[in-house]
């Protein structure tokens, strides 16, 4: 499996501490901690430097395994079809914002010309600065010849990362590069905190986004989730019927 190294910039609505907590031993429903047991594994790894010198180093890998058994472990995802639909929504939103900004700039310039009472040179500078700021998100910031880079695209990437609850997906997709491992590699919820259908064995549930979101996002650790949506109203309404597939199973602690 490809190793994914977490960078802080990948997290947008969870703090790094919250992220590690969910990886390690925290219930997503009540934020309570599960009991864990540490297991250590020692082994040697070979290393070499650019001069060709080789040596071995002994390293210790720590695995934190949850020992409780009254919880579900789960992961979730969105079908290819819905991911494609999301890309379309994102593209439409981008085009709409570009159009709004370009039209808005024309009327803003007219308004400033009429209302700003400054010396002519001062007025010219002020108008250009205000317009530059107004168009900041839709201005290509890359150097000539380089790939175009608009701040709006970065914002939209983050918004849609949040729509897909990207920070939570990293909880099981990310294998951090320290020598700490967390078992089970999934989101954890006490059975009493589980708001969906109970299962006795591995199951795949399909729920509308809104239902999943209303249940999971009650957790106070997700307060940062809503910040960007305020700037792009309407996005959440567009996705609320999108189905979320949840892969869930009761956890069985495998005592070795």
């Amino acid at each position, binding site marked *: 499996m490809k190793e994914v190294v977490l960078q802080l910039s990948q997290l947008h609505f969870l703090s790094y501490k919250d992220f590690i907590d969910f990886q390690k031993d925290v219930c997503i429903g009540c934020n309570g901690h599960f009991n864990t047991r540490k297991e250590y594994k020692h082994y040697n790894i070979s290393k070499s430097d650019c001069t060709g010198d080789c040596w071995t180093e002994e390293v210790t890998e720590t695995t934190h395994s949850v020992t409780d058994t009254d919880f579900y472990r789960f992961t979730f995802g969105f079908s290819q079809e819905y991911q494609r639909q999301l890309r379309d929504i994102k593209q439409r939103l981008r085009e709409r914002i570009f159009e709004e900004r370009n039209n808005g700039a024309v009327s*803003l310039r007219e308004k400033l010309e009429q209302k700003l009472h400054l010396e002519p040179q001062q007025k010219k500078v002020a108008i250009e600065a205000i317009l*530059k700021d107004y168009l900041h998100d839709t201005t290509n910031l890359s150097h000539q010849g380089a790939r175009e880079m608009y701040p709006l695209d970065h914002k939209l990437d983050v918004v849609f990362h949040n729509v897909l609850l990207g920070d939570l997906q990293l909880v099981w997709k990310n294998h951090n590069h320290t020598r700490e491992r967390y078992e089970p590699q999934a989101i954890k919820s006490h059975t009493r905190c589980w708001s969906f259908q109970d299962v006795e064995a591995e199951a795949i549930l399909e729920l509308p986004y809104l239902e999943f979101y209303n249940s999971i996002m009650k957790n106070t650790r997700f307060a940062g989730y809503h910040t960007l949506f305020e700037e792009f109203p309407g996005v959440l309404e567009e996705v609320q019927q999108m189905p979320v597939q949840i892969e869930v199973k009761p956890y069985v602690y495998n005592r070795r």
Partner: protein
Amino acid sequence: MMVKYVITGGPGTGKTTLIHELQQQRYAIVPEAARQIIQEEQQKKEGILPWTNLYEFQRKVVERQLDLEEKVGSEICFVDRGIVDNLAYCRMGKIEVPQDFQKIDLKNRYVGVFLLDFLPKYEIDLQRKEDALVAPRLHDMIKFVYIELGYGPTPVPVLEPKERARYVIERIQRGDTL
């Protein structure tokens, strides 16, 4: 040339919090000169403070404020209290306006002025000793001097800092601050 917007209001209106929020959102800022000077002077044995020597204090503030406003290097910037505020403080303290003032073109110095409404709870800190009863009078005096100089201060309601920052930016981007 900088395009300067003033964030002002009486003591305890949340100016510094808003300024910090705007700074977080990529904007250049000018910190409040008076607060800096009080902090510095409080360290000295016989420091010049507004409650010991208001005239000399205001002179120092204007000098520092001009210096701070010169140093910013961005096109749009937000000033935590404009130089005009000092005029209001001088009038409230019934003292002569420092001579340096008379050389400054106060009418064309700022592109817009945002006047912050009072927060529900006024907090007194070490650098801010205005009595809670004086604060509203000072607020009105600040508003008055800006209007007298031809500015139309835009009122900013009490909101969360992020929302207040957005309110300010939206007013600028709609050309409503002039």
